[in-house]
């Protein structure tokens, strides 16, 4: 009994210094896909990490098989999510692409796979609805997050509750089309994808996710991030 028919899920993991987290993420993903009976592959796009991320990825490739773990190295000065995804997509053989951070920020529970039954073009994880949420955030961080999201909703009316989360499932051709159209960098890029997707008439489903603060490593949310977020938001406001 084939659970997902001929569907195959390609998970794109851009990494930089994720030596600690990467095996755990891969293990969690592998377990979730095995349990749901879906065919999958994990494409690791590493930007020349000096901490041995690539070496760990190669070990994982041996353990899980090179049809399941695909290691791609890029070394670029202007490493951005966009570059990594473009690179990763070239090697993706699935018809669905999952994009998530490689750090353990996204508790891997793939309701996505089930949610996909709504036949959405995109399924987006949201921290703000249902039983989605966060762990390990202080009041200040929560306030900034909610405030920023409110401004985004007012200005962009995107039709999705969480634009800056980056745990999403896309149909492959949808992602390809969006990558052609989107020009921003960093997480503004994630926002732009949803906005453009709406303009192009793609259907977007939402699934609550738990954003557990980085288990290893530090999160960054300083004045610089806020300023660049606002700049990106205003750019999207003026151009989409």
């Amino acid at each position, binding site marked *: 009994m084939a659970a997902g028919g001929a569907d195959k899920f390609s998970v794109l993991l851009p990494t930089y210094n994720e030596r600690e987290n990467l*095996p*755990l993420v891969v*293990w*969690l993903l592998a377990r979730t896909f095995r349990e749901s009976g879906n065919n999958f592959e994990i494409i690791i796009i590493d930007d020349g990490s000096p901490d041995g991320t690539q070496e*760990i990825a190669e*070990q*994982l490739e*041996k*353990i899980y098989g090179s049809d399941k773990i695909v290691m791609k190295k890029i070394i670029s000065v202007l490493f951005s999510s966009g570059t990594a995804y473009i690179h990763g997509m070239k090697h993706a053989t699935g018809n669905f692409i999952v994009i998530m951070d490689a750090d*353990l920020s996204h*508790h891997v529970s793939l309701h996505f796979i089930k949610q996909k039954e709504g036949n959405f073009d995109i399924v987006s994880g949201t*921290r*703000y609805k249902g*039983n*989605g*949420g*966060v*762990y*390990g*955030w202080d*009041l200040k961080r*929560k*306030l900034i*997050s*909610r*405030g920023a*999201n*409110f401004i985004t909703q*007012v*200005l*962009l*009316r995107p039709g999705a509750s969480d634009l800056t989360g980056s745990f999403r499932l896309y149909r492959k051709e949808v992602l390809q089309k969006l990558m052609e159209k989107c020009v921003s960098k960093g997480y503004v890029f994630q926002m732009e994808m949803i906005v453009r997707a709406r*303009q*192009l*008439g793609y259907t977007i489903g939402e699934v609550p996710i*738990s*954003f*557990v603060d980085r*288990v290893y490593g530090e999160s960054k949310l300083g004045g610089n991030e806020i300023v660049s977020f606002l700049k990106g938001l205003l750019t*999207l*406001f*003026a*151009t*989409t």
Partner: protein
Amino acid sequence: GAGRSGPVRFSRLLSPQAAMTKLGQWLCGLALLGSAWATLALAPPGLQLPAPYRQALLPLPVYLLVAFGCYSLATVGYRLATFNDCEEAAAELQEDISAARADLRRRGLRF
């Protein structure tokens, strides 16, 4: 964009690509409301509305701004207060991490 000779194709105006930017929509909306307000509130003596209406209309923009400000504060405050803390998810994750490390070690991963 590149110059186009010839008439604008009507179908292009109807396509999604021709939609206004959000900024454009805001400017249009504000221009419409603004001119309506200005026409009614600043009309010459002969065409004015009765005094009570004018008195209510004049400060309306400020009232709306303040109302929106209150709405924003209330909404963000409410959402902040109801922002879920995922205790269970965090605990689950810790267990998963232990299980993952044990299993991977068994399968030969050198951390």
